[in-house]
C-alpha cells in the first residue's frame, strides 16, 4: 500500500542505516545523519534499528496513508498531528486508512525522523535504501521527496498497534529512548591519523575554542567558522579513507566535520574524530549555532558506545525477531 506525499516539507529524504560494503568503489555510506534519533524512531515502532525512514529537515512532510499503519515522529522538537489533532513525539502512533499525518515543524534542532512500521519499502540499491543525493541513487529515485510522491509502505492494523504500544511502554520505562537534544554541544574527540602533524598548540585551539556552524554545511559535513587551528601550513595528505565523525583541517586552518554523506576519501589532514555517541548532536545544529570539542580517551569513548549498543540490543530483544520482508502485522 502507499503513503502519498501531500506536502514534501523543507527537505525530506529516505534514509536507513547506510550503504556499507562499497566505500572502496567510492560510494558514500549516506543514511541517517542523527543516528540516535533515527534508531529511536525505528525501535519505537518495533522496526529493526536500521530500517528505512524519512529524514526531514525543520519543516516535516505531510503524508496520507491509504491503509492502517503505525508510525512515530522523533526530533529534538516538533508538533506533529494526525488529521489536525496534535499527537506526541517519540511515541508509537496509530494511523487509520485515509489519515493525514503531518510530521510538524521544528522550532529547534535540524533533523527529525518519521518512521513507519515495516519501513519505507523503496528498492534497495547496492544493499541499502539510503538516498545518495550526489550520484542520484537509492531512496526514492535518488532524490529528495516531491509533492505527489508515492511511498511504498506496509499496512499495520489496530491489533498490531496495541502490541507495539504495550512493548514500547515497558521498554521505554526500563531503557528510555527519548529526546537528548542540547544546545551548544561539546563533542568528545579521539585522535585522527594525522594527529601528530599538529602541534599541541593547534590541538589546544581545537579543543578550547567555540566554533559556529557555517551556512555551507549540509549532509556531507559541517563547515565551521572560528579560530584557525593552524596558519599558513599545507595540510594536504595523499588521499586516505574518511568516515562520518572525521575532522579534516583545510589549508585555511578551519575544521570540517564529516557527516553521513561525506566522501569516502579525502586529501586533507585528519586531526581527530568525533566519538560515535557524540556525533548525533552535531547533526542537529543549524547554521549559526555553536559547538565545541574536547579530547577524551578510548576508555571513555568505548564505555559510552557500549552503553548505546547495549540499549539497542535490549530493545531488539524486547521487540523480538523479525525477518526482512515479513511483517508482524
Amino acid at each position, binding site marked *: 500500500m502507499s503513503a502519498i506525499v501531500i506536502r514534501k516539507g523543507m527537505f525530506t529524504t529516505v534514509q536507513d542505516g547506510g550503504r556499507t560494503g562499497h566505500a572502496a568503489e567510492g560510494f558514500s555510506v549516506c543514511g541517517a545523519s542523527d543516528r540516535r534519533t533515527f534508531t529511536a524512531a525505528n525501535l519505537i515502532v518495533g522496526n529493526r534499528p536500521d530500517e528505512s525512514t524519512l529524514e526531514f529537515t525543520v519543516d516535516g512532510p505531510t503524508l496520507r496513508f491509504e491503509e492502517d499503519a503505525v508510525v512515530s515522529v522523533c526530533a529534538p522538537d516538533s508538533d506533529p498531528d494526525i488529521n489536525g489533532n496534535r499527537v506526541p513525539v517519540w511515541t508509537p502512533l496509530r494511523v487509520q486508512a485515509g489519515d493525514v499525518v503531518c510530521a510538524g515543524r521544528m522550532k529547534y534542532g535540524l533533523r527529525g525522523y518519521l518512521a513507519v512500521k515495516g519501513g519505507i519499502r523503496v528498492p534497495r540499491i547496492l544493499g541499502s535504501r539510503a538516498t545518495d543525493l550526489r550520484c542520484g541513487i537509492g531512496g526514492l529515485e535518488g532524490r529528495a521527496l516531491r509533492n505527489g510522491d508515492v511511498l511504498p509502505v506496509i499496512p499495520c492494523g489496530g491489533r498490531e498497534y496495541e502490541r507495539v504500544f504495550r512493548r514500547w511502554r515497558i521498554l521505554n520505562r526500563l531503557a528510555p529512548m527519548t529526546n537528548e537534544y542540547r544546545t551548544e554541544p561539546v563533542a568528545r574527540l579521539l585522535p585522527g591519523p594525522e594527529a601528530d602533524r599538529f602541534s599541541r598548540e593547534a590541538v589546544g585551539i581545537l579543543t578550547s575554542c567555540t566554533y559556529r556552524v557555517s551556512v555551507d554545511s549540509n549532509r556531507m559535513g559541517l563547515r565551521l567558522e572560528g579560530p584557525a587551528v593552524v596558519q599558513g601550513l599545507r595540510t594536504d595528505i595523499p588521499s586516505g579513507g574518511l568516515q562520518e565523525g572525521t575532522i579534516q583541517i583545510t589549508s585555511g586552518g578551519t575544521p570540517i566535520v564529516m557527516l553521513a554523506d561525506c566522501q569516502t576519501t579525502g586529501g586533507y589532514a585528519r586531526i581527530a574524530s568525533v566519538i560515535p555517541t557524540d556525533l548525533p548532536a552535531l547533526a542537529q545544529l543549524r547554521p549559526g549555532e555553536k559547538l565545541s570539542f574536547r579530547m577524551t580517551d578510548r576508555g571513555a569513548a568505548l564505555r559510552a*558506545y557500549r552503553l548505546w549498543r547495549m540499549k539497542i540490543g535490549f530493545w531488539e530483544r524486547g521487540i523480538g525477531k523479525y525477518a526482512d520482508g515479513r511483517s508482524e502485522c
Partner: protein
Amino acid sequence: MEFRQAGLTGVVCFPGGATGDATADAVAALTRALNDAGIRGALETVPGFDSVFVRYDPLRVSEHGLCRKIKKVYERIGEIRTTCGKTVEIPVCYGGRYGPDLAFVAENAGLTPEEVIRIHCAPDYRIRMIGFLPAFPYLGGLDERIYTPRLETPRAEIPAGSVGIGGTQTGIYPLASPGGWRLIGRTPMRLFDPEKGALYAAGDRIRFVPVGPEVFEGRDP
C-alpha cells in the same frame, strides 16, 4: 607497517614502500588480502593513495587485536605481484566539443593534439584508489610530457564521462560534477551500475581507446 588510530572505529595502515609503485603494490595487495581474510569485526576496507583504511566495530575486535590480525594477514601475503586485477578499456572521443581543453593541453606541452592523444592512450593506467565520487579512479602513470595545470577557476559543471588532466594526474568524472581539470575527451561508458557497483576496483588497470563521435549519436549532448 605503520598503524594509526582513526577515532574509535577506524584504523589506517601505512604499508610503506621504497617507491610510489612499491607502495601502490603494497596497498593493493593488503586490500585484497584483507577482503579475502574477513577479519571478525572489520566492516570495510578502503584503499587510499598510500594507505589502507579499515572501519571496524570496536565491540567485536579491539584496536590492538585488529592491528595484530592485519599485520598477520600482511605477513602471510606471498610475493606481492604487480600484475593483479583486470584491464578495462574505456572508449574516449577526444577533442572537439567533448574535449574543449585538448588544444590548450597540446599548446602547453608544445605538441600537436594528435600527439597528446597518442601519449594519453599509450599506457595502461593503474587504479591506485577510487574516491571522491563513485567509480572516480585515481590513476597512476600519466606521461609527464602532458602534465597540465588545473583551471584557475573550476567549471561549475563537467559532463559525466569527461576525461581530464589535472596537474600530474589523469582520470574520468563518472558523474556531472564541478571540477578544475582540463577536459580532453569524453566516454559514453557508464562507469558504475546501481545493481553491481563500479566497473573496476583499485588494482585494476584502465586503457583509453580513441573512438569517433558516432558513439554519442542519438544521445543527449
